[in-house]
């Protein structure tokens, strides 16, 4: 626990607080059309775990990229240990002792753990000759020091996500980093892996390493963090000890107002007609799934990773093969490709926004119109004006924040990108929408908006909706019914009021009733 007084959100009281170890002063950075950071002050005390949070697009990554030397700030200065840090490139800041662990990690998968730890600074027997034994020994010292059991000779590709994170931390230690930035380390970790990681983080802290911790999962900040800085729209909204806050306050600081709870919102009325149904859906993951969704219904699919959530959606969308019978509006259909499914009004909002949902290099209008373009064209010829106008109307309707519809979709924040994916299917006038993790990696404010869009869609006559999610709370807030999947089959089906504990139990054990 920190025993020093923390810096406060107001201008630092001169004299009383100790000089921070890392200080970024008056950092501004503009990208064409957007002021990403506006005179942000960011100070971190030595040896603390300092959380950095903010909605998507608030400027966290930009700030950290400036610290890492990836971007140059338009104005402002960085002090490290009281000395100015001139980080013109990532190697400059690494030399100065700042290591950044990005979410997508930067390990060489086919090299060993030891090689990765010492990448670029291999121990040498003589100039140009790698000291393999020495390297393995040194790697083992670092790994043992952190109390983790990873073999230095193991190939990184064989490690779990959690262990890869730990190898990244070892790499930072080997480089004698004094400040380590961890960008969303927990996003892809299981609970056990996360606990192991936290132990390592505390270990590093005990050795005097200063850690900047970025995460969307607010609960875990209270577990790991000493203090917190909140960014909002490129400005600092708060900075201070984390203990004096709770989650609700953090959220308020992040989005600038209170969150409406999804619960209690009225659900769209249900019709009797079944819109889409499947019987005996089977493939390498699915083991005979029966499902039916009625008009107006929002069906939730809940289950652990690998339980078959995405596979069901892909089978309905024709993008993955499955045997069994699928009926739309009571008629049996053959779905051998997405084109077939789209013709029947089915649309899929896939799990991986950037690799499956969007073409990042194309403009907002084109990503939004991509599915509907054939319908809106005359004999294969586009009518650009019409498409731009339509895209603009959807940007407005879904409140997509973008400088223009001509902007590359790459430069939008996660939440706005997701809205563009949804716009694609609304523009196509789909009547059956399949959402796969629709709010993954987007901030709370945008989440609420996505929920509203889903509810709005489901309320239209003749619509049917399936939402697959690993966040039970989100399903409970908006679904008429939740089906729990376990190893490729439907293990239980629940209606409100949802018995949270039983649902969790079903997802983990595959049995809908707790054993006596």
């Amino acid at each position: 626990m920190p025993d020093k007084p923390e810096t406060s959100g107001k201008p630092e009281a001169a004299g009383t607080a100790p000089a921070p170890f890392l200080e970024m002063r008056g950092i501004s950075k503009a990208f064409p059309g957007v002021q990403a950071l506006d005179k942000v002050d960011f100070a971190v005390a030595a040896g603390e775990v300092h959380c950095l949070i903010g909605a998507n697009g608030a400027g966290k990554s930009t700030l950290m990229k400036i610290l890492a030397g990836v971007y140059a700030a338009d104005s402002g200065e960085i002090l490290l240990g009281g000395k100015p840090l001139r980080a013109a490139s990532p190697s400059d800041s690494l030399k100065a002792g700042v290591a950044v662990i990005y979410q997508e990690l930067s390990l060489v998968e086919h090299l060993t753990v030891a090689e990765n730890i010492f990448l670029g600074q291999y121990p040498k027997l003589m100039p140009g000759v790698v000291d393999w034994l020495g390297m393995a020994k040194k790697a083992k010292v670092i790994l043992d020091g952190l109390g983790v059991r990873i073999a230095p000779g193991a190939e990184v590709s064989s490690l779990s996500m959690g262990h890869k994170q730990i190898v990244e931390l070892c790499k930072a230690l080997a480089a004698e980093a004094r400040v380590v930035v961890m960008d969303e380390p927990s996003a892809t970790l299981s609970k056990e892996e996360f606990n192991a990681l936290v132990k390592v983080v505390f270990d590093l802290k005990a050795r005097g390493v200063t850690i900047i911790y970025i995460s969307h999962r607010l609960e875990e900040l209270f577990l790991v963090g000493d203090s917190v800085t909140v960014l909002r729209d490129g400005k600092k909204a708060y900075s201070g000890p984390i203990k004096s806050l709770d989650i609700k306050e953090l959220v308020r600081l992040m989005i600038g107002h209170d969150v409406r709870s999804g619960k209690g919102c009225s659900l769209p009325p249900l019709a009797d007609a079944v819109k889409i149904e499947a019987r005996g859906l089977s493939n390498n993951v699915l083991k005979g799934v029966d499902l039916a969704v009625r008009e107006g219904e929002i069906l939730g699919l809940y289950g652990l990773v690998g339980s078959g959530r995405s596979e069901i959606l892909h089978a309905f969308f024709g993008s993955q093969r499955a045997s069994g019978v699928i009926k739309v509006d009571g008629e049996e259909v053959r779905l051998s490709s997405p084109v077939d499914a789209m013709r029947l009004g089915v649309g899929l909002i896939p799990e991986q926004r950037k690799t499956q949902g969007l073409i990042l290099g194309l403009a907002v209008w084109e990503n939004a119109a991509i599915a509907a373009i054939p319908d809106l064209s005359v004999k294969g010829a586009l009518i650009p004006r019409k498409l731009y106008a339509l895209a603009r109307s959807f940007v407005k309707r879904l409140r997509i924040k973008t400088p223009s519809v001509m902007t590359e979709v790459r430069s939008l924040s996660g939440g706005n990108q997701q809205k563009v994916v949804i716009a694609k299917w609304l523009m196509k006038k789909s009547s059956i929408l399949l959402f796969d993790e629709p709010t993954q990696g987007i901030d709370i404010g945008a989440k609420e908006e996505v929920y509203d869009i889903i509810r709005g869609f489901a309320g239209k006559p003749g619509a049917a909706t399936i939402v697959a999610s690993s966040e039970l709370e989100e399903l409970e807030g908006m679904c008429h019914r939740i089906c729990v999947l376990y190893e490729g089959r439907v293990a239980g089906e629940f209606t409100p009021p949802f018995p949270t504990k039983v649902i969790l139990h079903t997802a983990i054990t595959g049995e809908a009733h707790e054993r006596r």
Partner: protein
Amino acid sequence: MNAVSPPREFAWKDFFRKYNLLFFIAVFTIAASIISPRFLTFQNFANLLQQSSVTGIVTVGMTLVILVGGIDLGVGSVLALAGMVAAVLLEGGYGIFLAIAAALASGAVLGLFNGYVSAKSGVPSFITTLATMVAARGLALLTTDGSPVFDLPETFQWLGAGFIGSIPVSGLLWIAITVVAALMLKYTTFGRGLYAVGGNDEAARLSGIRVKRSVIHVFVLSGVLSALAGVVTASWLTVGQPTAGKGMELDAIAAAVLGGASLSGGSGGVIGAFGGVWLLAIITNIFNLAGLSSYYQMIFKGGIIVAALMLNQFFRTRD
């Protein structure tokens, strides 16, 4: 909400990034007109247009292939084969239209093969078309056992060597193909689909675009355009030459990339490629006008390709 500041001082950078090819063309045009007063004459430009038309037509097809993230190494061999098909048929007394149609068909068939294998089997197009490059050259040589076909009928020469007014027909053909392809890329569902497929084929598939079909179509187009270039070459030289078009694939790739196409797919266009071909032609022209050996030309061309792309990269990463 989001503070939107007006973009300042970025303007010239953006401009340069987008139009740096024009900048290079302007620089070399000025240099050329200083070196030789004959450069800025209508006659010289007509010559340039005629000389570049073959590479130009091939480059249009190549650009489309690169746009979907592929590469077509077979263009030179297809060019030679198509030229031989046309020449042999003409020599045998068949009509011009039949000869040309058969030549184009041979290009289409090879393109279909390239596209089908690349799209359906997952063999990278680099390998598929490398095979076509070798095999089609063999086919071209086989048609006459390696010897050229001379003395093609005079009426056949119009396409490659004829003029409309004082503008070469082959140059007009190149311009027309470029314009049609540019309009297709911008204003048709097929054209926009190519950008989507090249940018992210998985997202394109999940948006209802028939990815494999698009790839096959693009390779067929490239095959047909290479074949057309082969017909133009045979018509221009009045000779069916089985060794024609050697190294053409590299010129076409260089021109397409100079014109802004990215080898990873999803960006670029045929107007840029036109500029790329034009730039390379001007450079050759300068050296010819200055009376320097073509060996210097080759070295300088290599240098310019690297310099232009490095500059491009520089402006791309500096934002």
